[in-house]
């Protein structure tokens, strides 16, 4: 599903964020990326998502060379990937319902289907009673779940989640990972970046570790 060959990323001024990453993630796989803060976990996810171009290397996503995809085709590819951002990236002026619906609207899904699917997804993440709230009226954990709902509602082929349990208490963290597990059981590839060791140990899935931008086990 995702293949990376010798991917490196340096930011302006030559600061290296990732160095020589070669990695293969199979279709339907559930993978944790772990490592300390600043190890390059977020950068790796952003490269997989196409929002950060690598400085070197190749990325094959679903059989297509992501590096060579022209800008106008990027939206179509992004609609197949659900991304849960560490800072949620919710639209503050829109309601919870509208934030989740945006994922479907940009795909041109008819309004009646949007309504049904968003309502079902909000029930799934236990936020149906918050549908008309604005994100800033919600707690950190609730905002996290809105971001997850927005990523999942479009039934993506891949879900990339950057520290999705970072703002949650242990009990809620488990609930969230259970959501990802359920989606994964229906065939969606799930990649989660986290530094929560307890969670990784509890679920015993394939885990790769980054340190200083390098892969230390794969």
């Amino acid at each position, binding site marked *: 599903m995702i293949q990376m060959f010798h991917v490196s990323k340096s930011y302006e001024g030559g600061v290296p964020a990732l160095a020589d990453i070669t990695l293969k993630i199979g279709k339907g796989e559930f993978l944790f990326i772990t490592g300390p803060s600043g190890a390059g976990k977020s950068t790796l996810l952003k490269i997989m998502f196409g929002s950060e171009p690598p400085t070197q290397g190749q990325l094959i996503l679903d059989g297509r060379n992501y590096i060579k995809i022209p800008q106008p085709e990027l939206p179509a590819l*992004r609609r197949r990937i659900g991304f849960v951002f560490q800072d949620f990236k919710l639209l503050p002026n829109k309601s919870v319902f509208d934030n989740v619906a945006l994922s479907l609207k*940009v795909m*041109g899904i008819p*309004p009646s289907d949007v309504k049904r699917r968003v309502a079902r997804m909000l029930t799934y993440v236990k936020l149906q009673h918050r549908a008309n709230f604005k994100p800033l009226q919600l707690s950190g954990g609730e905002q996290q779940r809105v971001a997850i709902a927005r990523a999942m509602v479009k039934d993506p082929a891949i879900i990339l989640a950057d520290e999705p349990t970072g703002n949650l208490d242990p009990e809620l963290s488990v609930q969230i990972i259970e959501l990802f597990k359920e989606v994964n059981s229906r065939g969606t590839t799930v990649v989660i970046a986290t530094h929560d060791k307890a969670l990784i140990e509890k679920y015993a899935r394939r885990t790769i570790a980054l340190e200083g931008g390098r892969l230390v086990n794969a």
Partner: protein
Amino acid sequence: MRKSGSADFVYIISDALSSLKESKGTTALTSLTLGFSLAIFSLFVFVISNLNGVMEGWGEKTQIVVYVKDNVSSAEAMKDSIMKVAGVRGAEFVSKEKALSELKGALKGYEGILEGVDANPLPASFEIKVLEENNSPEGIAKVVGELKARDWAEDVQYSREWVEKLSAFIKFIQLAAIAMGVFLGAATLFIISNTIRLAVYARKDEIEIMKLVGASDMYVKVPFVLEGLIQGLFGGLLAMCILAVGRYAVLSEIPAYLRFAVEMPFSTVLFLAFLTGAGMLMGVAGSLISMNRFLKV
């Protein structure tokens, strides 16, 4: 995955309308800036185009006077001869009697000076106006040269210095107007583009998020284009209102001879259409240019 093109269109328009509702404050502020900037620029255009009209009026008054010899030719024949000179627009005959009565009028209170003058010593004359295209020092000199060659012409007079000074003054004013127009136009564009840029910048996160969830450039752009259009429309209408109210207030306060500065020099409908069109164009172009760099996510 894609279900319906018409749903796309419905979402784009409905999202554009709802984002317009959410950004009422910014829209109002941008419209105000657009309106005032356009009004200032239009006022400048008014003053300059009216000043041009006034100066052309002065130029038209430039006259050549041909004094004619007594009893050489009839007034009609001389007028025909003058009108055949290239560059002449009109000629008015001033008979000896009329010249004397005009002199008497000018000497009102001092009529005694003329006592003892039996015969009329004043010559008849023609006051000549030249065509606009000949209203330059060179053009007038050419007409004067031809008039002097007429055998019935006693003398030809014109104010060479006045013509040259007026011509130089008009040229200076026109150059100054162009320079000021360019400066004011650039300042107007700068203010408007920066206002729009700030308004778009305030929403850069929204643009980024929409792009990250897979929105096409079109989906993101349409609300901004619509907002730009509406801001431009309101801005143009506001400029019109400011100009109309300003003109009314000024007209009732200033003396008649200064009114040229606020007269509408061209078709009102055309100017209103121009103002609205310019506002809308600036609104749309400003929004599109400002948001372009945020689309590359």
